């Protein structure tokens, strides 16, 4: 495994947002995944934010968007000086991103459980217009999956084989009640008594309960390992939606 630290440049941009010299970049659970997406995966650029053929990145887990803003600045979507006054009265950047205020931001988010529905709709809209190249990536948190609305989208995309969408779950083990089998491992299910056999059979797979149950392909990776993240993001297959679980440090 190769653990690649993010560039000093990103660290500097993050410090500009947080004003915090001591906080390690690892405090930003989404940082490495979003960097790899923008650096190696997404077909999008500052001069393509209105291009119908661009890939779409939807940050569903809208809170704690510092890493997202830092990457957007590093990649030239927004001026760096926007980072100096996040959530100020004149700032275009808030504690949840607003698509009407920030170039390159595909959805306004914050209330949990909206990104996957919007993502499924985006994928369907692109398909209906014959735009078969772009892919839709939706970043959610493991605790965000508590919201029932996600499961409507997960079930529908799985049942209809919507293969142009990739969900990226940042798993910092922050969900209050956990998932049977954990969100990424099958160990916990052994301690969960009284599950019906077919449920255990579905969830005991070595990848995510709800996604696996509905037929998504999946890959679970170290959420700090850039090469592994890239491989996982590119390992989608025809005929089914794809999920990447990026495991990071447990939320304190």
């Amino acid at each position, binding site marked *: 495994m190769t653990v690649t630290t993010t560039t000093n440049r990103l660290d500097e941009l993050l410090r500009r947002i947080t004003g915090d010299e001591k906080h390690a970049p690892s405090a930003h659970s989404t940082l490495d995944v979003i960097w790899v997406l923008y650096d190696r995966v997404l077909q999008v650029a500052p001069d393509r934010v209105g291009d119908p053929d661009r890939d779409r990145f939807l940050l569903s887990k809208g809170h704690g968007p510092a890493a997202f803003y830092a990457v957007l600045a590093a990649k030239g979507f927004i001026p760096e000086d926007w980072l100096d006054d996040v959530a100020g009265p004149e700032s275009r950047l808030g504690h949840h991103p607003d698509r009407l205020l920030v170039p390159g931001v595909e*959805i306004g988010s914050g209330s949990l459980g909206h990104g996957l*529905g919007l993502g499924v709709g985006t994928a369907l*809209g692109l398909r*209906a217009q014959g735009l078969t190249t772009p892919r839709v990536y939706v970043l959610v948190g493991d605790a965000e999956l508590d919201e029932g609305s996600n499961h409507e989208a997960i*079930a*529908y995309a799985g049942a209809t084989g919507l293969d142009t969408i990739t969900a990226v779950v940042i798993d910092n083990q922050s969900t209050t009640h956990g998932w049977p089998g954990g969100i990424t491992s099958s160990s916990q299910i052994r301690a969960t008594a009284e599950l019906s056999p077919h449920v255990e059979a579905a969830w005991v797979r070595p990848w995510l309960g709800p996604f696996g149950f509905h037929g998504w392909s999946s890959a679970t990776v170290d959420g700090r390992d850039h090469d592994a993240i890239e491989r996982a993001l590119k390992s989608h297959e025809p005929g089914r939606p794809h999920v990447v679980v990026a495991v990071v440090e447990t939320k304190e």
Partner: protein
Amino acid sequence: MRETFVDTATRLLDDDPRTAVVLADISAVAFEPAARRHPDRVLNMGIREQLMVGVAGGLALTGLRPIVHSYATFVVDRAYEQIKLDIGHQGVGAILVSVGASYDGSTAGRTHMSPGDVALFDTLDGWTVHVPGHAGEVAPLLIAAAEHDEPVYIRLSTHHNSAPRPATGLQTIKRGQRAVVVAVGPMLDTVLAATEGLDVTVAYTNTPRPFDVRGLRALGHHDVVMVEPYLAGTSSAVLAEALRDVPSRVLGLGVGRADLHRYGSPKDHARWHGLDAAGLRRSISEFVN
């Protein structure tokens, strides 16, 4: 009205590649012929209303014009946050078309009633609300809505007037002196029966939002009775604002807040809420005398 809606939406799917219909099982059978021709633009989510509205937001983000359809209580009440955030906050539009209205589904009980839907749209910005009074008003309203990208709610009912009045502004039906009685959508024929022999103006609109303030003020009345087939008083704030510079009196008649815990027919519910001709006549007479 529902059949006219399905026919018109089907025609729009054939004629305008920008349109898409999003369903949550309700009316899915009626859209089957369209779905066979346009499998990528007739999208049935199954019984998933949050997803239905979220998907509409996503479709609109790619430039399509989604037409979303279910019972009012499912497409509006249940998916309210998706309407607020996945459509409104994203800066996109959609056409939401409901059936069931306030108590068309009276035999199904309170779970299938939505008297509060229009009031919910009053908490949001920019929505046009159409409440057609006749099937003949549905097609022009839907076709016009499909031509732009703004948010539009169309509230269909099994209750209707004897003749269509497709214009969207406030229309004067008869003139009188004592007050104006504004009938919204399917309430018109009942209002006309209720006001027979009363010296009042009767006006009609199938578009309570944005309310035709100019049309109302042109009538010159300062005493206004609003008869709405949804929650009583929904338009009272709009009327107070419209008449803020003149002494005025406003009576808002509509469906009561109480969950009656009763089944029966829509006619029974109209009577219980004072929205039958006799009930309206009592309320209006008391107001003008």
